[in-house]
């Protein structure tokens, strides 16, 4: 290990070779945890717990929250070296992407550039399928050219894996690394990092520009430790940009109090509004499922789609229900190939690939396909949308799977729910809100064209 591996990092004293600890100059050593009264606070993830819930024998305490990245305890310290921004200068263009932005996208792209230049904290609320990644290029181009250290983080490994090649393609002259728990390549010091939000726990005042994609996704939204990590991974005066299609309550509150700037992109790249959610109430869908029945309207809609040759996704709340629904549909639709997929499914990637390649007409799934996947021209059905597993963000994301391609920019989103839950109403409200903003934008554009 070299000192360069510690620039902007925070590693546990057990992870750094003792030789380096003794010889290297300019290392900062902070205690890994601090005890306050009956509580101990982890200096890496910021979580606080009562001493009784995190004790080791012998008066030592540890943090169970971020244990997957190596156990932090009161006997250890965090080692870091301040970020010197030692990067090579560019001889030729930084940005090697030659695509075009639509005029709304270009406007947002300009906003992002100013956020980076003024080192602000900002939220970009862009609808699902707006083309967020492309809008980052201009800002990143500037930051990399200035010799700043940048990172794009996402809570999901799939999203990181999808973003990485796109950035490699767009910044061919920049060294980019991909960091996540399932990637074995070792850490190296470089200017551009694509990583999961968990990996940010290992950085300390490293990035001048930090972008967090899909802030509303699990586990970032539910885990305060990760927000803490994000705030500490960037330099104190660094810029922080959140990207989301479905901002949660805490983000919206920060906007209201003015701590966070916001810009909207209420239209998709093809200039169409989001498809709205239709709800059908079937209070007894759970009982019916037990009796091996599905709501008649659902079966009708499925048969209709199959007849019209429109493909669709059917979401159910829990893994156990996949099998039940599959069996019922087997009886209803003889000869149809019925495939289900869930998070722990070994053939998950193959099954999604089958759907991509038009080999199957529909896929029954749990929330794993809520984001990050694009199937052209599909409709979406949700059975039991009022279940707790569907957060309002998840429902908006699910609705956002529809109409992503220019050749079929609209489509149906139908929810079957026992009753209108808070999350369902919230999702409907959010879509209505951005559509209203989108409509205003469309009107402005048509008047300025005249």
């Amino acid at each position, binding site marked *: 290990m070299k000192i360069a591996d510690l620039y902007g990092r925070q590693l546990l004293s057990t992870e750094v070779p003792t030789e380096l600890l003794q010889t290297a100059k300019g290392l900062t050593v902070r205690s890994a945890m601090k005890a306050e009264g009956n509580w101990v606070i982890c200096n890496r993830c910021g979580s606080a*717990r009562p001493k009784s819930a995190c*004790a080791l024998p*012998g008066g*030592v305490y*540890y943090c169970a929250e971020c*244990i997957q990245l190596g156990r932090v*305890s009161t006997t250890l310290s965090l080692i870091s070296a301040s970020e010197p921004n030692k990067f090579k200068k560019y001889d030729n263009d930084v940005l090697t992407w030659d695509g075009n932005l639509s005029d709304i996208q270009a406007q947002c792209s300009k906003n992002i550039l100013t956020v980076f230049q003024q080192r602000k904290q900002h939220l970009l609320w862009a609808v699902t399928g707006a083309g967020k990644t492309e809008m980052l290029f201009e800002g990143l181009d500037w930051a990399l050219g200035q010799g700043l250290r940048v990172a794009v983080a996402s809570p999901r490994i799939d999203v990181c894996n999808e973003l990485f090649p796109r950035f490699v393609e767009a910044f061919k002259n920049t060294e980019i690394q991909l960091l996540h728990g399932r990637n074995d390549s070792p850490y190296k010091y470089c200017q551009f990092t694509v990583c999961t939000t968990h990996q940010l726990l290992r950085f300390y005042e490293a990035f001048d520009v930090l972008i967090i994609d899909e802030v509303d996704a699990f586990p970032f939204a539910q885990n305060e430790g990760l927000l803490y990590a994000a705030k500490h991974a960037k330099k104190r005066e660094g810029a922080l940009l959140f990207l989301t299609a479905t901002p949660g309550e805490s983000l919206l509150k920060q906007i209201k109090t003015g701590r966070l700037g916001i810009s909207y992109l209420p239209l998709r790249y093809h200039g169409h509004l989001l498809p709205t959610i239709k709800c059908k109430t079937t209070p007894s869908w759970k009982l019916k499922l037990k009796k091996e029945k599905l709501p008649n309207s659902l079966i009708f809609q499925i048969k209709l789609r199959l007849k019209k040759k429109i493909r669709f996704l059917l979401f159910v709340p829990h893994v156990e229900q996949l099998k039940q629904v599959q069996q019922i549909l087997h009886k209803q639709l003889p000869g149809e190939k019925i495939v289900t997929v869930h998070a722990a499914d070994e053939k998950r990637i193959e099954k999604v690939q089958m759907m991509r390649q038009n080999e199957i007409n529909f896929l029954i799934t749990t929330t794993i396909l809520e984001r990050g996947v694009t199937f052209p021209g599909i409709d979406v059905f949700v059975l039991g949308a009022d279940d707790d597993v569907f957060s309002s963000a998840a429902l908006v994301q699910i609705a956002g799977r529809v109409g992503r391609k220019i050749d079929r920019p609209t489509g149906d989103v139908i929810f079957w729910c026992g009753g209108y839950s808070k999350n369902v109403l919230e999702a409907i409200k959010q879509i209505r809100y951005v559509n209203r903003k989108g409509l205003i934008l469309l009107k402005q554009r048509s008047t300025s064209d005249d």
Partner: protein
Amino acid sequence: MTKNDCVLCHRPVNFSIGLIDLMLPVKINEPTCCDRCCRRFELINQKQACPDCGRKMKKRELCHDCVKWNSQSSLDFKNSACFVYNDEMKKFMQQYKFAGDYQLAKVFRAQFMKKIKKSKIDLIVPIPIDADTMVTRGFNQVVGLTTGQHLTSALEVRADIHKARQSSKNRRSRMETVQPFRLVNPELVANKRVLILDDVYTTGRTIRHAAALMYEAGASEVQGNTLAR
């Protein structure tokens, strides 16, 4: 984390206090893990287990491993285990021992203690860990599973032999392991009924080494108790 979150899956635990719980002067034990997580661990019924090593069987009969053991050595040693060492238990051990999440021990502590209290013995001896592991891990995983009372640290790991982790070896090289332990004061064990505690019984090599030492020092009877088999 609130007090009533499952320590394994971090989802809230639903449990209700019945009228009887309120009426009787018994301490109410709040569950530490939820039903869904509990169900993943497979309890071993002693009537359907190998009498020598505690492995889950169809009926109470010797398993093929124990038949082999009996043909090799004349050591009189009986082990019993609480749970099947299935994938879920492996995951638990990974998190508890190797990641070092000490608090997870409370999931099984009550059950493990109940089992120990049932045995008719004089001395309870946990399998020790070596000094290096103790420094990095910060706890002995076997002691962690108990409430720590009445334990006698009669054993210690010999410092003179190089020891690779048992879990990193294959069966063959595990079986070739030489005696890793040493008795601290052998007179403590003489003429006593000893119960040896360990977390997992895999090949039986480790715990049988410990048992052999006990007999050498004059123990009258040696039993074993492990969390998983």
